[in-house]
């Protein structure tokens, strides 16, 4: 087991989720877009996060997206990752979609999620909301809403994440407790 340090306990996680919800609210209302609002979480933490945000934001739809079949590393040698089901029981055409994920790093999951969304329909607009941005982008992808910015360039040197470290968001009921840890 690798050494693990906690950077947010369950109270802090609750604050961060609130902060993210507020940002999304501002982002969406500022534009007073026509069409309904949908929160779509990327499995397997973004979907739990989307459900939490939905309790506050009351969107028209909530869904979850499994991006396994859209990953860009499937042709690399190695066993195939586990495929789960996507759960988007509504048409995406013309909707304003907030794509929700727990941690943003390389941007590859987001790229896969965008391609998957486009195969399901034609959303009117897509925003990206993440709980943590830890930096390390490999693709030109930028979030619209971030609750906790841990990129070195964000200025908080004490909190900054080293390149070899992994940021994990734990959320109930998938995990036993709400917290953010670094290992």
């Amino acid at each position: 087991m690798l050494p693990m340090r906690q950077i947010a306990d369950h109270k802090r996680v609750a604050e961060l989720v609130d902060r993210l919800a507020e940002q999304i609210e501002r982002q969406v209302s500022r534009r007073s877009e026509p069409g309904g609002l949908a929160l779509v979480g990327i499995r397997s933490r973004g979907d739990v996060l989307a459900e939490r945000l939905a309790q506050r934001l009351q969107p028209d739809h909530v869904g979850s997206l499994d991006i396994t079949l859209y990953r860009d590393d499937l042709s690399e040698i190695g066993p195939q990752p586990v495929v789960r089901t996507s759960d988007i029981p509504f048409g995406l055409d013309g909707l304003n979609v907030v794509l929700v994920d727990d941690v943003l790093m390389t941007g590859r999951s987001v790229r896969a999620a965008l391609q998957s969304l486009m195969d399901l329909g034609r959303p009117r607009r897509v925003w990206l909301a993440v709980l943590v941005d830890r930096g390390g982008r490999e693709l030109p992808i930028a979030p619209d809403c971030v609750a906790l910015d841990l990129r070195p360039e964000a200025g908080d040197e004490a909190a900054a994440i080293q390149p070899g470290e992994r940021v994990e968001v734990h959320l109930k009921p998938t995990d036993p407790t709400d917290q953010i840890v670094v290992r």
Partner: protein
Amino acid sequence: MEYRWPHRHLLGLEELSAQDIRFLLRTALGFEDVSTRSVKKVPALRGRVVVNLFFEDSTRTRASFNLAASRLSADVLDFSGKGSSVSKGETLRDTARNIEAMGVDVIVCRHHLSGAAYQLARSVNCSVVNAGDGQHEHPTQGLLDIYTIARRFRRDEDFDLTGLTVAIVGDIAHSRVARSNIYGLTKLGAKVVLVGPPTLLPGGFRDMGCELSHNLDEVLPRVDVINMLRIQFERLTSQAFPSVREYAALFGLTRQRMKLARRDALVMHPGPLNRGIEIDSAVADGPQSAILQQVSHGLAVRMATLYLVTGVRS
């Protein structure tokens, strides 16, 4: 240790563990909704090549593998044994190695000889999926039958079939579908009752953990699933039964006979149907029939198969 799918080939259900079968079927669940979306395609096997190498007639299996590969964005090459160099005397091994030299990732093979897929897997470096070898196995048909049963009886959380009884009826001796079903069903905990005339139901099947019966009317009231096999006129060499009419009278699933079965019993058939022989139209098209679901589930199961075998390298 987290489970990893370990098989580069899918040759039969005999060599799969219960855990392998459950993992493949769970993967198929993830593929089922691809067929209901506006864009019925995912990029998972983009740039890969799947070859259908069929030495025996087939419509639905071939079409199903073809569509499964297309929906995974693989390139598909259709290769028929008939009217090709095979009829000029080329061996299976040479044919396969020539095809492999074109840069192929998966060969899906159907052959009239039992064990052909195994021989193929030994001669090539790419993945081999058995789409039916003689009277031996037809693993994807077995898997899609089990998937259909699990979906209907809400066992698709864990794919544990304990407590379910499945009757497989007809020409068991010549049936690769029966063999794959028996291996898979018993591994997942189901009870299997084989029903047919003594000439088509050798006693050796008892050793595979099945109950044997020659009386369909006695079996019907106590089973959850009735899987009717096709009478394979092309494989029956000697006189297995006196007449087709007699066979239909004793082992055909008629509307009258269905009254003996449970109201929630599921009727299945791997197709193509001999209507009026092993199954009546009223039953095949009736409310308890899952025959068309089997076909659509076959697509998801074959997508899962192609996806999983291509992830394993030698």
